[in-house]
């Protein structure tokens, strides 16, 4: 290690990923501290709101199960109302986390380390909300196990040619793999919390979940390989989930659904909405928990750029759909699209167009990409737009089917609205519990992106620096 003193070619330095001259211990302290102190009063207030919404959700589910799906606004042509809109909405949001943790990992985008843990948590909670909706949409929830590959009382098996069954597999595999990925990534950080724990109960619980992790290099070796392999497995998985969700629509023969553009278009939209949700949550969390040096404005700007990219892809897909409808010369297809833009749901269509195509275009301006209030508002607008996208796709295509006598307008009932609102309660409650009890930033990974983690950092310093970050 002594020969590299002559090796002092200066490479234009990249902006530091962690600002504020933080050392290893500072990062441990900054992140772990929040799981150890009393939570701020904002946390309690938000928890109160979230759990109230969660109780509304529970009440609505109870009401639904007792009375049957007639309590929803779903009618004869529009058999897939809000439950499916909400399912696609939540499952889309659940794309950002694994994208950040897997795809950006493979591309060696080191800035991901600051946000991957919370984004993955968000993913898992969003997928939980997503799984809820098709489960209650089947009507008789108590026989939901019929979707499992088990023969029923007539010894018949589930129909594997059905996209709905593919969906069951896709979403549950995605959930399982994301959960495993998240947990495995968290083990070293849980060990950090274990080693800082004072009382026996906390030590025991964390000791159980940290699996006796001791930071051994023999372990890191297999661990890092596992993480890489999981990232490689999760990457096609992320892209496949929303593709399979889009098959629910695309494999049918409904005009407006039966298009081959759906899989990539759904995936782009999912990443778009997922990043918007990550932004919404992290802008609040970094402020409240004072971790602006770890989740920096640069991170937010990079997310804004991804939002701009995916938003434009989604917008391009909207326009392509229109073009193909005209170009195909299929009368039904053409009607479906003209009706979307000018028919009874034109209001929803234009909300979708402006929120998803127009608003992200402001991110071409650097000043707006770095303005936190603007980012926050846009991230919410994007998610409103993405909810409407799913509404437009689901409801406008169904409300005009091939038989004009069954045409009808879809109106949601209070149960629809309150169930959807309640799902935010479920999501937020889970996220708040995560912020309170688990390390919200991947400490070991953030330490790795500090220049001090590189053994060669010390080559030019003859004395052993006590505080290398002072350099």
């Amino acid at each position, binding site marked *: 290690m002594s020969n590299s003193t002559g090796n002092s070619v200066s490479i234009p330095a990249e902006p530091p990923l962690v600002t504020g001259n933080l050392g290893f211990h500072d990062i441990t302290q900054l992140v772990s501290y929040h799981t150890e102190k009393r939570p701020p009063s904002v946390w309690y207030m938000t928890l109160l709101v979230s759990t109230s919404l969660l109780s509304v959700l529970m009440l609505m589910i109870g009401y639904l199960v007792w009375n049957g799906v007639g309590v929803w606004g779903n009618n004869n042509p529009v058999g897939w109302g809000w439950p499916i809109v909400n399912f696609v909405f939540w499952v889309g949001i659940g794309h950002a986390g694994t994208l950040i943790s897997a795809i950006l990992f493979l591309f060696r985008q080191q800035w991901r380390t600051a946000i991957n843990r919370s984004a993955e948590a968000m993913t898992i909670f969003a997928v939980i909300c997503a799984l809820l909706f098709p489960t209650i949409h089947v009507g008789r929830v108590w026989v939901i196990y019929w979707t499992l590959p088990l023969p029923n009382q007539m010894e018949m098996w589930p129909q594997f040619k059905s996209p709905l069954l593919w969906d069951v*597999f896709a979403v549950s595999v995605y959930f399982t793999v994301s959960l495993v990925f998240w947990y495995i990534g968290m083990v070293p950080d849980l060990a950090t919390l274990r080693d800082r724990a004072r009382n026996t109960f906390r030590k025991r619980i964390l000791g159980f979940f940290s699996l006796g992790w001791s930071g051994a290099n*023999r372990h890191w070796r297999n661990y890092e390989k596992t993480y890489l392999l999981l990232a490689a497995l999760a990457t096609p998985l992320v892209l496949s989930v929303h593709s399979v969700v889009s098959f629910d629509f695309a494999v049918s023969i409904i005009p407006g659904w039966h298009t081959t553009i759906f899989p990539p278009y759904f995936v782009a939209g999912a990443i778009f909405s997922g990043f918007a949700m990550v932004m919404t949550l992290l802008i609040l969390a970094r402020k409240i928990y004072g971790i602006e040096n770890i989740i920096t404005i640069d991170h937010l700007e990079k997310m804004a750029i991804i939002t701009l990219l995916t938003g434009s892809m989604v917008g391009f897909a909207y326009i392509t759909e229109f073009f193909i409808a005209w170009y195909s010369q299929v009368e039904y297809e053409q009607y479906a699209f003209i009706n979307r833009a000018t028919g009874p749901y034109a209001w929803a269509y234009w909300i979708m167009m402006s929120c998803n195509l127009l608003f992200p275009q402001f991110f071409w301006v650097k000043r707006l990409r770095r303005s936190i209030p603007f980012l926050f508002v846009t991230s919410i607008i994007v998610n409103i737009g993405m909810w409407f996208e799913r509404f437009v796709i689901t409801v406008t295509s169904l409300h005009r089917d091939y038989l004009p006598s069954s045409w009808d307008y879809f109106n949601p009932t209070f149960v629809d609205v309150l169930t959807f609102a309640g799902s935010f309660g479920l999501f937020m409650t889970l996220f708040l519990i995560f912020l309170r009890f688990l390390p919200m930033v991947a400490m070991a990974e953030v330490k790795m992106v500090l220049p001090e983690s590189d053994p060669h950092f010390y080559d030019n310093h003859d004395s052993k620096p006590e505080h290398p970050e002072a350099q």
Partner: protein
Amino acid sequence: MIKKILQGIKATMGIYEARTDGVYGLLAEFPHPGALIDAARKIRESGYQHFDTHSPFPIHGMDRAMGLGQSKVGYLTLIGGISGLGLATWLQWWTSAIDYPINISGKPFFALEPAIPIMFELTVLLAALLTVGGMLAMNGLPRPYNPLFYSREFLRVTDDAFFLHIAASDSNFDLQETEALLKNFGASSVEVIHDHGHSDLNSA
């Protein structure tokens, strides 16, 4: 014989046997990753095998310094992936073409195209689960009992401290000589670790 093989396997996981007098090994602290990697290389060159470094994050180049090869986890991923693919293919073919064929719109009972999504999903699922299971098995985790945890200093290993541990089971291990060697290689402090409890090897 079998015990020797088992000890060898456990040594690859970083699980070592304590000496009969209860000495588990020496734990040396180093000031920073650069010093740790340097010491690890020198310890290996001095002929030690039962040693490991402990750090809050993986250190780039440490595998080479310690003389460890590629991790073998990838083979398990491959086995998992192939089993998942096989299971999904068999499940869809056997249930819909053999056990209870149902004619739907004259479509073939089994065709590759509609079977692909589930084949993909189960491939990924089993590959991921076997990778994680294999990683834990190869690391000997979960390992709730580890004599190193008796050290107060070792609590900082998940925070900002860098340690090298030489196990007493190493054939070159000598309490005084090894300690002197570690000090010589730049250790800021060296501590003798005793195994107070029953390690899983002793009870086996």
